């Protein structure tokens, strides 16, 4: 049976400012791996407007089948329209697995789809695997450990995954796939109508691409302590990340939050300041060669997870470090 006719691991593609979102390609790469394990094909649902040949990249990333809906009404994400189209396609193609990026669109669309399809949905997975019974194991960090969730009976098994959890796939230009255009009905009235989407350019260093990241946590103490940490990131020309307590306190916003329900990062060097080592944050960090932590509690869990540790109140240590770094910079070579 041709793989594209047996596409059973589906990904909902998402388009961003510069074409296909990275998370979509990462999910297709992972879908490819999962599909190979259960001997199925990978399908991608691509909805948008003026799509040209955007499906090409999806196929090169691993898709066997692309269901392409290209219409003006699909230009912006519209919950009711996207949901209606995808539900119809899912009922027709009956995928085993359906994945979405843990993006703003994904976090709204996924639950709507799951409810309409009467199936289960797991949020912000940091790993996916097929178990011995052919069921998708969806792993999330919680309560200081790892929880594996399954959706044993209902189909499709749905999960959202953040950008950066899975690696960018190698694009293979020799791959081929089937592209099927979807007919989009005209004149559907929407009760929730997205009029405009404004995406702002990121200021400063994007966390996803930063090679050095300074992350601050509750140990910053107060907004002044947080400012010191911001300065440290600036002096090191590093990305500035945060944890949930920092966002909750209002010192920084949600975009800076590193962790399971925030951003996944893979810097070369990670410096955690006033961070307790809580799992929800730490799972957001993969790959650094060097991990450093500064924390005033010698018993802190973070010291089991880093290469270098400093027991010091970060409100004392960070200014001292910043000052010394500035002195070094000022010294003539």
């Amino acid at each position, binding site marked *: 049976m041709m793989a594209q006719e047996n596409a059973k691991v589906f990904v909902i593609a998402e388009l961003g400012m510069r074409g296909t979102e990275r998370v979509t390609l990462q999910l297709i790469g992972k879908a490819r791996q999962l599909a190979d394990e259960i001997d199925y094909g990978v399908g991608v649902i691509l909805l948008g407007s003026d799509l040209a040949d955007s499906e090409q990249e999806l196929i090169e990333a691993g898709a066997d089948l692309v269901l392409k809906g290209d219409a003006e009404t699909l230009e912006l994400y519209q919950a009711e329209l996207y949901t209606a189209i995808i539900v119809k396609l899912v009922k027709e193609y009956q995928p085993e697995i359906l994945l979405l990026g843990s993006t703003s669109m994904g976090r709204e669309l996924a639950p709507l789809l799951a409810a309409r399809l009467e199936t289960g949905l797991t949020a912000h997975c940091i790993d996916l695997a097929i178990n011995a019974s052919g069921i998708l194991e969806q792993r999330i960090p919680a309560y200081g450990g*790892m929880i594996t969730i399954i959706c044993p009976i209902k189909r499709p098994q749905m999960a959202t995954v953040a950008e950066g959890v899975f690696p960018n796939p190698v694009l293979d230009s020799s791959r081929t796939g089937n592209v099927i255009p979807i007919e989009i009905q005209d004149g559907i009235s929407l*009760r929730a109508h997205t009029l405009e989407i404004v995406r702002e350019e990121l200021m400063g260093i994007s966390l996803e691409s930063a090679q050095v990241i300074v992350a601050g946590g509750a140990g910053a103490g107060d907004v002044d302590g947080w400012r010191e940490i911001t300065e440290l990131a600036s002096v090191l020309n590093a990305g500035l990340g945060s944890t949930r307590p920092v966002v909750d306190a209002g010192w920084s916003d949600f975009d800076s939050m590193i962790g399971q329900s925030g951003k996944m990062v893979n810097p070369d060097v990670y410096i955690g300041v006033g961070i307790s080592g809580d799992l929800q944050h730490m799972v957001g960090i993969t790959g650094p060669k060097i991990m*450093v932590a500064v924390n005033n509690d010698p018993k802190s869990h973070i010291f*089991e997870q880093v290469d270098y540790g*400093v027991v010091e109140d970060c409100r004392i240590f960070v200014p001292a470090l910043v000052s010394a770094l500035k002195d070094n910079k000022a010294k003539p070579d």
Partner: protein
Amino acid sequence: MLKIIVCVKAVPDPKEADRLKIDPVTKSIPRLDIQLVLNPLDCHALEAAFQSRRKYGAQVTALSMGPPAAGNVLRECLALGADEGILLTDPAFAGADTYATAFTLASAIRKLGFVDLVLCGMVSSDGSTEWVGAQIAAFLDLPVVTRVSEILEDQGDVWTIKSDYENGYRIVKLKLPAVLTVTREINQPKALSFSGILKARSKQIIEWNLESLDLPAERVGLKGSPTCVSELSNLESRRAVEMLEGTLEEKVDHLIEILTNARAA
């Protein structure tokens, strides 16, 4: 007059919640005596309801699914200003995933008859999925906008909504009745007041169970959940740490050396 339902959740006090850990031996989460409090974002949902009530008049009902102890949290919602509280409580509701939770809440909302607006906090501090609000909308066949940060126009039954979207925002025209999930930015909730607490004396909390909702047991709780937990495990710690020693200056210098070698400084 608008009929507004605010879905609220009683969650373990976020300040204490990180004491809940998977026991490495039993591979389960031991029960701790952590107090249940109102999910922080739900205060913003309540305040959004109160703002509509101040402007146009509304009846605001706080609805929650939880154990009997969640009644305290509903009492607080009344003290904050909700007109009545409804607690969905029944051993059968326990162990629900978001699907079963949203299904149960939606059934209760349906039982209340016509509603103009359902408001939820964007996410709960313990579940952290962001699913329930949207799924309630799906079950009630209502439109939904998630992560609402500002209500730009709210006269009549067509509203203009601003919501967070990636690194920016989107503007949505929304026809009521509808569901909104809100972020912290949407408003500044008013503090719990003594007079509010006194006024709550005359307000009631109604309890509904499985029978009151007339639902089959297989659709709620653990039985009604398409997902389930198959395993709990601990993460092994990953690295062997070298603790830097010495005076403050010595530690600073040592760290700078490490960072320089790693080409970070």
